[in-house]
């Protein structure tokens, strides 16, 4: 049995809502079948009265064993480092986070906000938000670059806005069933098993990408083409399993005609949503994508694209996702 304490700092609860969509295991399965001991969660369970604050205090002091501390939401340091823009159970949340992170065997950051600051940390960052161990792509964040939990691990980052429920539940089950050793992390402390692949891996539009055939409008226009060329899709540059492990067991943004916004990467929201950057591919010389797929360069990309367009079969210019 593993004990879990889940708190929300500068959060929207999107990761919790996502978590509640889980099946195999569902939240109920995790607790009833896998014996996960959810000590407290903002939207689950029923500890009232003295109990909740006592749980936080006992976990922080070490009186009660805390195996996994899950944090959702940004670390709010404002104003002036006081943390009083986010007060929880009578104290700045940063005080709880400091103590609970020290006390827990493993610390898990769920969602972009807890991983690297997320949308609250976007310019001008009014709440002085940051992530647990990263600020955007920069190492450090709230706990510092060298921080390690009691078990010797850095903060495990499960990014996304929100994180997919399976990325959360399968990691919790892995930790709860003694498979922590199988969780290999990448440079950004993300479990590789989920984040080695690209969002584009498994995208139903990948054949259009192969032949450089674009979608030209939303709505019925998305019955054909790839969203990379005109609509700013970040699928080829973003690491996630969104098209391997579908959302709500049904679909993904790119399958439904929505460009990937790159929300598992620390720069999300990209370009700080400056005018002209939302749902629009940034280009050089008016036609060439400013960013090309990871590992490629402009010259190689253009040569490949020219050849691909010549090779494009007739069907790649027609609607594919038809009624």
């Amino acid at each position: 049995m593993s004990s879990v304490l889940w708190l929300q700092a500068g959060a929207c609860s999107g990761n919790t809502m996502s978590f509640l969509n889980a099946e195999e295991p569902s939240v109920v399965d995790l607790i009833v079948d896998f014996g996960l001991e959810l000590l407290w969660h903002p939207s689950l369970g029923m500890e009232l009265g003295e109990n909740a604050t006592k749980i936080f205090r006992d976990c922080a002091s070490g009186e009660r064993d805390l195996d996994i501390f899950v944090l959702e939401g940004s670390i709010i340091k404002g104003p002036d480092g006081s943390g009083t823009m986010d007060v929880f159970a009578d104290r700045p949340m940063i005080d709880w986070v400091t103590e609970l992170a020290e006390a827990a065997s493993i610390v898990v950051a769920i969602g972009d906000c807890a991983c690297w600051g997320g949308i609250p940390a976007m310019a001008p960052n009014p709440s002085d938000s940051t992530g647990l161990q990263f600020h955007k792509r920069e190492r450090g964040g709230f706990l510092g670059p060298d921080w390690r939990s009691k078990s010797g691990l850095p903060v495990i980052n499960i990014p996304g806005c929100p994180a997919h429920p399976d990325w959360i539940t399968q990691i919790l089950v892995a930790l709860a069933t003694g498979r922590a050793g199988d969780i290999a992390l990448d440079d950004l402390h993300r479990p590789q098993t989920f984040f080695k692949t690209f969002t584009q891996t498994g995208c139903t539009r990948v054949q259009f990408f192969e032949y450089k055939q674009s979608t030209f409008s939303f709505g019925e226009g998305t019955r054909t083409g790839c969203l990379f060329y005109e609509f700013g899709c970040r699928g080829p540059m973003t690491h996630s399993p969104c098209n391997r492990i579908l959302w709500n067991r049904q679909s993904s943004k790119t399958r439904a005609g929505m460009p990937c916004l790159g929300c598992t990467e620390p720069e999300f929201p990209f370009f700080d949503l400056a005018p002209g950057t939302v749902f629009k591919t940034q280009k050089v010389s008016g036609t060439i994508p400013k960013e090309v797929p990871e590992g490629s360069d402009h010259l190689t990309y253009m040569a490949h694209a020219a050849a691909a367009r010549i090779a494009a079969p007739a069907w790649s210019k027609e609607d594919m996702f038809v009624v």
Partner: protein
Amino acid sequence: MTAVDSSAGSVDLFVSPMGRVEGDLDVRVTIEDGVVTSAWTEAAMFRGFEMILRGKDPQAGLVVTPRICGICGGSHLYKACYALDTAWKTHVPQNATLIRNIAQACETLQSIPRYFYALFAIDLVNKNYAGNPMYDEAVRRFAPYVGTSYQKGVVLSGKPVEVYAIFGGQWPHSSFMVPGGVMSAPNLADVTRATAILNHWKDNWLEKEWLGCSIDRWMEIKTWEDMQAWVNENESQYNSDCGFFIRYALEIGLDKYGAGCGNFIAPGTYLEPSLYENPTVEGRQDALIGRGGVYANGQHFDYDQMLVSEDVTHSFYSGSRPLHPWEGETDPLDPVKSREKGKYSWAKSPRYEVPGLGRTPLEAGPLARRVAAGAPNPGSHQDSDPLFIDMLAKLGPSVFVRQMARMHEAPKYFTWVMDWLSKIDLQGSFHTKPAELENGKGWGATEAARGALQDWIVIENGKIANYQVITPTAWNIGPRDSEGTLGPIEQALIGTPIKDMEDPVELGHVARSFDSCLVCTVHAYDGKTGRELNNFVINGMV
């Protein structure tokens, strides 16, 4: 930990984690002779989304505002999109309106059971009710994780948002609604699967677990007497979760407190596709299917967004007078220092200029919508439903009536969604490319599961000059205004009887009946001795 008022004979409760959607809520309560006599609700977290949006791409709100609240993210997207539609004067094909309606309603259908079982019903098994003859049955059904109804309700709540994902790619946090329509164009199997998923949800939760009868039978209920007769009509209805809840709620007195201000705001939602192909601020209310309206002092008024303003007298922001959101400001202050000036919350106080009454706090939420649906002179395309006008007249507002208003929407919206699904013209258009105007003003509104949700946008020189969001939680938990008038939840807490000072579950019922998305911490003080009796945390949806 601060006692508010230590005058003799009174006891102060200070409530911090209570349940959440947009951060944390602290509630301080003064108690005299076992009854709440005053209350202060304090939103305890600030992220500054309106400041973040300033100077950004006009469409930034489609990405940013859903992240204000992950439980209502689809509702945020829906109104952010209409704010742009009105600012850019777009054309929205009828298919796109249908899909926006379906997605918005599916988010609400998700919220209804998830909220009821995961948040509200767990208080029904509080040990304070252990002596009640119905208690064992309540525990069997509603106990967290192991209750038979809890398991089904919480797990099946994920089904309606599978339909959202079919059209929007994922839930929560899609941005698939864009000015001029939607990004997706469904195919045949998308629509048939969506229909099948919703039928599964209806068969396995809505009719089987919750109602114990058909949707049609439930929708025949027009009065409080009809509802009572429905409970006793047969064993299936009597023993359904709904039948049991009605009986249990009356048994433990949930109809006796939590009245609130008794005045309501609903901008309304769900647009009739043929009446809103060219969205305008002025044309919106007549095009609504789920009607909007304001109800104050027993009178119905048409809803007019120009009459909304926000007051920051007791909020941690600078500002000297109430402002309409197009002129609204968000300039945060140091919360510790500004407490000395009597400020106590990160929520602003939204107010509505009711003709003849002046700026008035109004309750947002399902009960407000149900009251609006009972107003006279509905259009032929509009919801017209007398049930909650009748229940308010006979029972008055309370925790129970608010709760029933929310649950009544499940069968109603299910029926609407099925109708909208059947009307999608798969061969038709789903998006009209808009002209991205350099300048403009827009307003978008909807009804999130928990009530009125609205954006006001000002676009200048191709970027956002001002963006203001008023959430239902702000309407409900907002603090006192410049007149000292209490916000709706502050008012609703007053008069609540507290049986057990060590475990004031009644406060949880009241706060949770508004389904405000905040976690709350509670502290109890004995006013006579200043001794802290109690502090506790009530969780909720953030």
